[in-house]
């Protein structure tokens, strides 16, 4: 009898973050590149106060609209504030609004999606009609109008983005629950006497929120975009705030007269950040959603 040859454990690649990333990047390079971009911006937002050369709202009154130079990499704006420092600092507003807004959407959308998908009936019908009805409004305009009506504050911006975006999560979670509702594990959970609450928030929540998780990055991208749009129209965020949209608003005045640096740099930062989140989201959706992968084959 010959000995069964065992796989050589020592030769197997050791688990490491690097190997893990390499493996992932084979399956979805998009997700990895997007993730790296988002991580860099996240890091910048944390260390911003220590790395920016100047206070983002300190006006150099003798250097209004100075073009990019060694002293001011991205030039100065109409108030004489350092554009580079402001662009870096603005990452704080991007994350500071997008994260709570998406969490709020999740907190509203996931329970409603679970409940309506599981229970069906009139509640399901009403929710569905409601979220369909909301779709006749262009989201940008509705957000602008509601924040303008509700009053200028960061809290209102977060609330409006979070609430108006919740139907996305309702739809995704509901669709997944509908597929799982009659599966064996739910039946078993019901048969062993679990209360509905437990079935919803333990059994189904663990199994039916993959799609929602894949959506998180995409919705965060949307939240960052819409925050900047609101700020561009002077809604929700006051003017000297170091926020990309607000900076582009000021830059718009100087675009037709050639002081391009005021508006161009914050725009590029905004695009790269949103692109990173979108790439991350797009890649995650491909990785997590087997149907998308199948149809892409």
């Amino acid at each position, binding site marked *: 009898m010959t000995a069964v040859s065992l796989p050589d454990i020592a030769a197997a690649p050791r688990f490491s973050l690097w190997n893990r990333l390499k493996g992932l990047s084979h399956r979805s390079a998009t997700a990895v590149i997007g993730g790296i971009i988002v991580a860099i911006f996240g890091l910048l937002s944390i260390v911003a106060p220590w790395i920016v050369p100047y206070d983002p709202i300190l006006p150099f009154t003798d250097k209004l609209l100075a073009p990019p130079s060694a002293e001011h990499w991205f030039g100065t704006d109409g108030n004489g504030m350092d554009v580079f420092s402001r662009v870096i600092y603005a990452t704080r507003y991007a994350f500071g609004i997008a994260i709570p807004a998406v969490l709020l959407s999740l907190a509203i959308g996931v329970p409603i999606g679970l409940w309506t998908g599981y229970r069906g009936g009139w509640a399901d019908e009403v929710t569905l*009609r409601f979220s369909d009805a909301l779709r006749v409004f*262009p989201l940008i305009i509705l957000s602008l109008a509601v924040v303008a*009506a*509700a009053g200028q504050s960061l809290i209102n911006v977060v609330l409006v983005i979070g609430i108006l975006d919740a139907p996305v999560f309702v739809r995704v979670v509901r669709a997944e629950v509908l597929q799982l509702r009659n599966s064996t594990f739910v039946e078993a959970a019901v048969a062993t006497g679990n209360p509905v609450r437990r079935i919803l928030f333990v059994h189904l929540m663990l199994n039916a929120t993959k799609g929602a998780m894949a959506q998180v990055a995409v919705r965060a991208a949307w939240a960052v975009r819409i925050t900047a749009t609101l700020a561009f129209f002077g809604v929700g965020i006051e003017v000297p705030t170091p926020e990309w949209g607000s900076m582009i608003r000021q830059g718009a005045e100087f*675009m037709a*007269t050639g002081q391009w640096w005021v*508006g*161009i740099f914050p725009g590029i930062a*905004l695009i790269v950040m949103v692109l990173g989140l*979108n790439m991350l989201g797009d890649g995650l959706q491909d990785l997590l959603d087997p149907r998308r992968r199948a149809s892409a084959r």
Partner: protein
Amino acid sequence: MTLGRFLVRRLLLVVPLLVFIAFLNFMLVRISGQDPTALIAGPTATGGELAMVRAELGLDRPLHEQFLVYIGNILTWNLGQSWVNKRSVLNDIWLRLPITLELLFWGVGLGALIGIPVGLRAARHHDGRFDQLARFLSLLGFSTPTYWLGLVMILVFFYFLNWAPPAMGRISLLMTAPPVVTGSYLLDGLIAQKWDVVQSAFAQLVLPVTAMAIVAAAPIIKQARAIALDVQGSEFVRSAQAAGLSGAVIRRMVAKNSATPVITFVGTELTALIGTASVIEYIFSWGGLGQWGLQAIIQADFMVVQGYVLTLALFSVLVFLVIDVAVFLLEPRAEMHA
């Protein structure tokens, strides 16, 4: 189901939707907490005059009655007047709607003309270099803020290259507008045979329409590609391939079977794009519905905001209606959308 019965059922569904739209619109002014009384009565009004204006506007009545009054007003085509300049809201909507629709029409048309072939080609060469490029460009388009794109175009093509006229509306400031027939300077110029007007109107259109097309093309590429991939992978295409049908025939089959989801998508997208058109109008001082509405939002002129949001919502309701009829005619077994 016959087309007649379908239409009746579909129109019945619109009624609660319209009530919902009106309610949301009504609430918009309520949550603003703005009291237009002082704005309308003027700064010298006495307490008695203020009370009169309040009664006239119905602001002294309970909320549900106010809502009924609002519904009644809408049904009798009374959308009130601007709090800022006292102009009739309905009049301004009629005046400005065609201006916005012109931009939307050319922009979305050009966007579809670019987006659909690119998306289909990307699907055909799935995972190839072209596909990857198309996917990236589409994501880039999704991530670029409309207003910034517009500003960059003004910077490059007006300030640096001097190819485009200043972004000051729909026609050169030195020119008199042609007599109004359609509301589009381009068409009106053609009708009046004023070639300099046509030329100027066209020059003014180029930048905003291009910006609109770029923004519109991004989702169109993505969706056209996804739909084509879906159809490509389906059984009937595989059997057609197995049967040895030529590439051209199969391509025609894919295009035909993609039509329904494409039309449905165009509907949802048009809703978003009329919002985008507003932003572009604002950047290019276009003077249509969008610039008017956005300015009202900035100035907190909520009577105008109400009319503006209502018009956009009604536009989408109409688009969805037309689309459902189109889908019904193409594919009678399709279910109704709300």
